[in-house]
């Protein structure tokens, strides 16, 4: 942190201070918090903020990853390095395991993204987590713009957007009944650009798929998808090698990439600053199902 002769904080410092406050509040008031971690840039910024909030002590809660079996290997490698460096406990709840145990059914048609929700809710229940941090940002999507920092979930894990608790000042209310939990969004007020500015400022390690690289891709629904045995070309689709990068990290079969030569954080930020598409609109197949896809999934218990 730089010196501040006029007692002013930059907006990035203000956002950071607010997020740290939220992390500490949850650690102080909840019995069993957990940090939901996908390995993407938002989760990694969350880890850094948690690290700062409790330094020099270790982060006082585990991290939870929903392994959908379709994650990018580069993302998992980055996850492992962060876990090792921070010495935090990693809990993995896998969709394959959930299928094997009959918690969810793989009908071959439902995307793994939809299967994440019951897998997550089951992991929260089995581990007795009372608060789950998520890297959701209100600028991502219009249903998320309505979300509180403390988002109450009932014993079915459901979000009720019509009946949210008023959230005034920074006085967060974490009261729960048996079986309920709270989703906590410490970076609610950050935008995509803030996240990138922060990654640059802090020199935080993120998965290398965010940077321009060569990849065999094909076009589907206006997005560039990775060719893998998990997601082969269909009729009429032709894969070719292109220079691309990712704006979000998710399910490999649903997450598209964009053509880009941005290979440094400065270049990525320059590109994002003039982007005409949101990250979700550009690269997330899971948000395209309907006008209210995110809201509907959130009501069921999605992050």
């Amino acid at each position, binding site marked *: 942190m730089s010196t501040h002769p006029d007692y002013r904080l930059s*907006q990035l410092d203000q956002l950071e*201070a607010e997020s*740290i406050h939220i992390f500490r509040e949850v650690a102080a008031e909840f019995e069993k918090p957990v940090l939901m971690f996908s390995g993407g840039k938002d989760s990694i910024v969350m880890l850094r903020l948690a690290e700062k909030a409790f*330094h*020099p002590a270790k982060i006082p809660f585990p991290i939870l990853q929903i392994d959908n079996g379709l994650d990018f290997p580069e993302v998992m490698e980055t996850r492992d390095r962060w876990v090792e460096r921070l010495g935090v406990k990693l809990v993995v709840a896998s969709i394959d395991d959930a299928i094997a145990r009959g918690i969810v059914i793989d009908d071959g048609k439902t995307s793994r993204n939809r299967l994440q929700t019951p897998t997550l809710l089951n992991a929260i229940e089995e581990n007795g987590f009372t608060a789950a941090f998520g890297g959701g940002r209100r600028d991502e999507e*219009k249903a998320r713009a309505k979300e509180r920092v403390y988002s109450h979930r009932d014993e079915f894990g459901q979000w009720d957007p019509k009946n949210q608790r008023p959230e005034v000042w920074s006085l967060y209310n974490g009261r729960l009944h048996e079986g309920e939990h709270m989703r906590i969004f410490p970076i609610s007020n950050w*935008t995509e650009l803030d996240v990138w500015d922060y990654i640059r400022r802090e020199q935080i390690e993120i998965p290398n798929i965010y940077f321009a690289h060569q990849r065999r891709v094909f076009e589907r629904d206006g997005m560039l998808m990775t060719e893998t045995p998990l997601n082969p070309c269909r009729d009429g689709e032709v894969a070719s090698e292109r220079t691309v990068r990712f704006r979000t990290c998710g399910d490999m079969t649903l997450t598209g990439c964009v053509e880009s030569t941005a290979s440094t954080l400065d270049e990525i930020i320059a590109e994002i600053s003039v982007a005409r598409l949101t990250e979700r609109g550009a690269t997330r197949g899971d948000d395209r199902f309907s006008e209210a896809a995110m809201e509907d999934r959130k009501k069921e218990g999605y992050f």
Partner: protein
Amino acid sequence: MDLLRFATAGSVDDGKSTLIGRLLYDSKSIFADQLEAVERTSEQKGHDYVDLSLLTDGLRSEREQGITIDVAYRYFATPHRKFIIADTPGHTQYTRNMVTGASTADLGLVLVDARHGLTEQSRRHAVLLSLLRVPHLVLAINKMDLVDWDENVYTAIKDEFTQFATKLNIPDLEVIPLSALQGDNVVNRSANTPWYQGPTLMHHLEHVHVASDRDLKDVRFPVQYVIRPHADTDELRDYRGYAGQVAGGVLKKGDEVIVLPSGMTSTIKAIDFFGEEVDQAFPPMSVTVRLDDEVDVSRGDMIARVNNAPSVAQDIDAMVCWMTTTPLRPRQKLAIKHTTRTGRALVKEIQYRLDINSLHRDQETGELALNEIGRVKLRTTLPLMADEYAKNRTTGSFILIDEATGVTVGAGMINSAD
């Protein structure tokens, strides 16, 4: 770059969504896919125009009914500043939503329709913003195109509002004539208002000075979390840090401090931030403070300067906004959260209900219904380290929680504590 948080207010048809849409659009904060979705939905609904309110009404039921149900937060940035808009609905549940949106705002934006002038709703919103001590207020007189850009209309509304505002506490007021639909005086100066010399709305939002609104004199550090690494290294074995967010004043290494409520005194040994020592900490920094002496400090305690401490009190006199359908009544017991301290509170007395239309104090009522504001006396189980809300919005505010349902039912602003 710095940050301005503002809350919008105004009736449903005053053009609030259009104005927000215009600010987002003209600052190039709307992305092509968002705009396409709005265009598509507008067309499906049979509109012959692009309904920018669809950008802000994000929930399925809001779009179905064409109304805003809950506060939404929007973001945009210009080369000068980053903005967070708390977009509050103008509908029936106005008070609760306004309080939610305005509690963290630096600036309140009240929209009026030039054809109708000030309405009850505009007065109510100004009263609420004043009660919440939002330091800057903008009265945006919208739809000036529909009154032929008549200066007299602008002047009449401005004079009426200024007159009304003398009864309130509004330290800074700007009155701007504009047309949100056509973009006049929103981002670009309008050729239609040659008689208006003031700033455009965007210029004002970009330049209004908010840094001086914080209290940098009275040190207030509510202890949030005690950091004890329990590590084996010599350096960390005895580490004991008090983590929190500075709520007032400037803390410096070497300062003599008092820990409340115990009254123990010590000296600041260091202020830590992620492995580095910082010379000083001021609002809203989140830091970790270490003290010279092994005093007993825990979450809920407050660190202040020795000769400048808040009240340590169990009798609280406050303005309370009631936020739930079951009324607030005397003898009721509730949970109270004030800074990092949680206790229980007993309602001793409801002194009056404030009629926010007339500012009349109704002393007969005896209770507060949903969306009503009144002056309430509380007795708390634990002492609170409190300031007047007028002095410090953090140490002067609290929430009330229904212990049975766990829901936040009241928001309070402290008048006095003893």
